[in-house]
């Protein structure tokens, strides 16, 4: 019996190969996309799962009452250690680190790399596989490092480099040889070594070099034992059977015993399982991306399945006789259902196999979209084969069930006469309508997301990002160091290609470290405002063309009236001056600080960070007082960028030979700021192309079938004098109504969904009619063009021929 089904199925597919091809192509498109998204989602689910005992590992997250006082993913330095020492029944192990970036060199090779200074427990706690070296002793000696195989290859061209040395620079520019005592196998994505830059396109600073926290002194970092150091990411491995919540009380107890009153009041520390942490961090960015892509993938698969259903049902006209005969000969309905299901299974199977073949070549595209390295198919566990088989079965069932029931329930006599009496044409039409709706929804979203992303880049940021580039410099945070850096700055400014140069700790990329509580002199300190505090020189404003009232020279003014400061308009208002200009000449101070700062400039508000946030109160401190800097910023002249860069490069290697000229244009830094939006735009672009392709495939199938069915009607109309164009209009009319209804459904949904999305942004476009009507028009034009092309042949056939067909 089954053999017979397969035979018939195969011959049917061969006979109607055009429709079979359309079906397979549609399913293929849907399945490839679903597969890619499936692999992406699986990859995201695997993050942290490969860590040893990951189900018992958590990160200590900080929640500060004063926003921005610290970062959420780090906590008080000694906390984790104390938990292990004081509560050995709860805590099995802990790991803490301080993440820095510095210059690593070996011979001619010289790069900036991310480095983790951390506890030695790193070697055993997470189960990272050590290819060479001793897990127990690798970091015991001072000036020893463990690196990944990847970095070993980068610097030495081989993996076994235990005993070799590399040179690491500290922030003062001093260099020191470190001995390599272990080599890790390359690390899969996890929240320990990829804590912050998992989603960043700039993965070069992902730490792959690890050394002991005993080296803090060499790097000039505060050690982990200070209860006032709350910038230490900390991980805890719980003992078996201990719940995360069991840690809450011990944490509170320790805070009460050791932390300062202020910190006790402001900070609450929550242990969070690593698996949850990854999904929930950055406002649930990963979770949102996983959900959004899954939904889009499901809808696209659904569209492909609908194509299948429509084409199968429409094709049934040619299957009528076969069904009739089989019924007459005693075939049962269940047998027909099996037969049609087998046919759909074969098609789904073919499409899936093609999709698997195509997978590897399409994978890099999606990797780029989601900004995550996607796992190879071969890295999947064997049981995934069953998942795939299950997928084929489910899709085959979904696609085949409706046609199977419709076709098998036809009456024997009617089918013998070849009468296709499908009562539910409206059902089929609504399926097509659904496809149009989904395509429109995705199209409109793509349109609006593009508008919003463009808005980010074209909106007046309040400063001029064009032709500004910046590069990190070695740090010598002393009076002498700052003076030296200023001299270097002045040297650069002599280059004819450079308009302006400045030194600062921050660049306007939203990546800020310091927030200080600031209040007016004379007002109570509990009225202080948490302000993002930048450390800049006086040339910063000109470099970025930030407009300030009153020009100023830090150095001169300092002597006259003590330290001076610049705040932005928002800060002035927040401090209580309704008219920001009234703040000029007034004095403010850091809560608990010694100095009174005179406000000597009001900077016009500008977007320091992402437009997802309101402009925040901002204070510009004099570099000479703060003594911290990281960047040299250059405003270069428009023109031949290549020669400009190479001239700066030349000068750089004369002035700062110890550090590579690793520069970023402000434009690129901004792109990094909006990575998730740009990714989302790419994803939606691709999804709209796919959905459009599937809709067009659906149109191809339905129009050619409709043409086939109406061939006699077309013949008669032509005999009676209809023109080719009139005939084409006939087919277009069929679809116009569907598109109109589909639009009526898609518009409110798109409006709602996009409005919700736009509400994430403080600075957003207001929705106009343009994306909606533009999308509908675009879809109509493409659809009509296709319908025209498809029906042209029928419309142009000699009527005698078409009449004979009957």
């Amino acid at each position, binding site marked *: 019996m089954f053999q017979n089904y397969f035979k018939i199925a195969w011959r049917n597919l061969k006979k109607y190969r055009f429709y079979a091809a359309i079906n397979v192509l549609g399913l293929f498109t849907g399945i490839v996309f679903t597969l890619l998204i499936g692999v992406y989602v699986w990859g995201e689910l695997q993050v942290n799962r490969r860590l040893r005992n990951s189900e018992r590992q958590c990160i200590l997250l900080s929640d500060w009452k004063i926003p921005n006082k610290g970062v959420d993913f780090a906590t008080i330095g000694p906390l984790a250690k104390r938990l292990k020492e004081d509560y050995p029944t709860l805590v099995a192990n802990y790991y803490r680190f301080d993440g820095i970036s510095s210059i690593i060199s070996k011979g001619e090779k010289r790069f900036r790399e991310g480095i983790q200074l951390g506890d030695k427990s790193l070697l055993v706690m997470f189960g990272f596989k050590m290819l060479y070296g001793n897990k127990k002793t690798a970091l015991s000696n001072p000036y020893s490092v463990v690196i990944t195989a990847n970095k070993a290859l980068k610097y030495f061209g081989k993996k076994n480099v235990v005993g070799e040395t590399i040179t690491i620079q500290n922030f003062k520019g001093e260099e020191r040889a470190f001995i390599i005592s272990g080599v890790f196998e390359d690390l899969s994505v996890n929240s320990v070594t990829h804590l912050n830059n998992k989603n960043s396109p700039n993965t070069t600073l992902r730490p792959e070099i690890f050394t002991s926290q005993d080296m803090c002194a060499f790097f000039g970092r505060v050690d982990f034992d200070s209860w006032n150091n709350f910038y230490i990411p900390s991980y805890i491995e719980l003992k078996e059977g201990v719940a995360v919540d069991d840690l809450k009380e011990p944490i509170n107890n320790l805070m009460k015993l050791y932390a300062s009153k202020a910190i006790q009041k402001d900070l609450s520390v929550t242990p969070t399982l690593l698996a949850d942490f990854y999904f929930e961090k950055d406002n649930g960015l990963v979770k949102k991306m996983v959900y959004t892509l899954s939904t889009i993938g499901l809808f696209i698969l659904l569209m492909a399945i609908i194509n299948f259903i429509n084409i199968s049902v429409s094709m049934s006209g040619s299957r009528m006789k076969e069904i009739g005969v089989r019924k007459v000969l005693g075939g*049962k309905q269940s047998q027909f259902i099996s037969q049609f299901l087998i046919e759909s299974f074969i098609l789904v199977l073919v499409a899936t196999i093609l999709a698997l073949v195509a997978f590897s070549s399409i994978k890099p595209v999606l990797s780029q979209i989601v900004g995550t390295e996607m796992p190879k198919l071969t890295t999947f566990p064997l049981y995934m084969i069953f998942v795939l088989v299950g997928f084929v079965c489910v899709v085959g069932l979904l696609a085949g069930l409706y046609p199977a029931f419709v076709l098998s329930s036809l009456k024997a006599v009617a089918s013998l006469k070849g009468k296709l009496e499908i009562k539910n044409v409206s059902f089929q039409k609504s399926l097509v309508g659904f496809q149009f709706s989904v395509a429109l929804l995705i199209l409109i979203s793509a349109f609006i997301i593009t508008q919003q992303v463009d808005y980010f880049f074209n909106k007046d940021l309040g400063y001029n990002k064009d032709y500004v580039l910046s590069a990190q410099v070695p740090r010598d945070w002393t009076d002498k160091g700052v003076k030296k850096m200023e001299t270097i700055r002045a040297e650069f400014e002599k280059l004819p290609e450079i308009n302006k140069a400045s030194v600062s700790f921050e660049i306007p990329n939203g990546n800020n470290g310091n927030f200080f509580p600031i209040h007016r002199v004379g007002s109570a300190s509990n009225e202080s405002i948490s302000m993002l505090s930048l450390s800049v020189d006086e040339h910063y404003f000109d470099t970025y063309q930030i407009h300030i009232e009153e020009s100023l020279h830090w150095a001169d003014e300092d002597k006259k009236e003590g330290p001076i400061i610049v705040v932005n308009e928002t800060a002035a208002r927040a401090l209580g001056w309704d008219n920001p200009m009234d703040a000029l000449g007034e004095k403010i101070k850091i809560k608990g600080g010694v100095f009174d700062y005179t406000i000597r400039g009001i900077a016009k508000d500008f977007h320091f960070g992402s437009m997802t946030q309101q402009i925040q109160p901002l204070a510009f401190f004099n570099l000479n007082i703060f003594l911290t800097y990281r960047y040299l910023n250059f405003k270069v002249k428009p023109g031949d960028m290549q020669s400009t860069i190479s001239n700066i490069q030349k000068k750089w290697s004369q002035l700062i030979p110890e550090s590579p000229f690793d520069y970023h244009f402000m434009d690129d830094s901004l792109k990094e700021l909006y990575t998730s939006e740009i990714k989302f735009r790419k994803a939606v672009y691709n999804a709209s192309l796919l959905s459009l392709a599937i809709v067009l495939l659906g149109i191809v199938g339905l129009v050619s079938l409709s043409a086939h069915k109406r061939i006699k009607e077309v013949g008669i109309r032509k005999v009676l004098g209809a023109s080719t164009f009139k005939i084409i209009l006939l087919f277009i009319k069929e679809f116009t109504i569907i598109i109109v209804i589909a639009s009526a459904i898609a518009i409110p949904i798109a409006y709602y969904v996009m409005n919700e999305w736009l509400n994430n942004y403080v600075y957003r476009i207001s929705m106009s009619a343009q994306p909606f009507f533009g999308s509908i028009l675009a879809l109509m034009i493409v659809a009509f063009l296709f319908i025209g092309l498809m029906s042209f042949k029928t419309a142009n056939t000699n009527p005698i021929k078409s009449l004979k067909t009957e």
Partner: protein
Amino acid sequence: MIKVTDLEKYYSTEEIKTIALNQFSFEVKQGEFIAVMGPSGCGKSTLLNIIGLLDDVDGGSFIFNGEDVTHYNERKRANLRKHNIGFVFQSFNLIDQLTVFENVELPLIYIGMKKADRKKRVHEVLEKMQIMHRRNHFPQQLSGGQQQRVAVARAVVNNPKLILADEPTGNLDSSNGNEVMELLTELNDQGATIIMVTHSEHDAKYSHRIVRMLDGQKVTEVSLV
């Protein structure tokens, strides 16, 4: 073998109700060869569909082999059909995607015969119908006469007690038509009961009895033996 009494069948659309069979009664004995004649639309094919258990009735009763099958459901009818009734159609109704052999084999698959037995039986019938040499061809590669012989072969392959033929020569030229009629006569001689709907007086002469119909009713019944 067959006894229908006061059969009624209507076809209704939203506006009109068409009477296809009106108080139709007749009886067929085992081994008889009956020709049913009448103008288009008189209800011949409807009668054949009902006797063939392809269609249900709106009134009257239908006894098949001593069993009242009037109210049988689709499953029971299909079961009765596949064991007892063979069909021959004017338009052959062969499945284009199956070869001659596979077309003839189909009824045997549905009654669950074993593969080896099926092969033997199909070959027997194809030999008898003289189309053995065409067994691996597809229907569209055969002439009309050959196609109808395949259809007859398929109708008799499971030794049905009753063969229903709906204008079996309607699409054939006279010589092919005669061949098919000879074949039916031969089957009848071997014991099969045959009911044939036809427009052809010539074909009707092969039968034992001619039933003439008009407007869903029996008009005359003439015995030729």
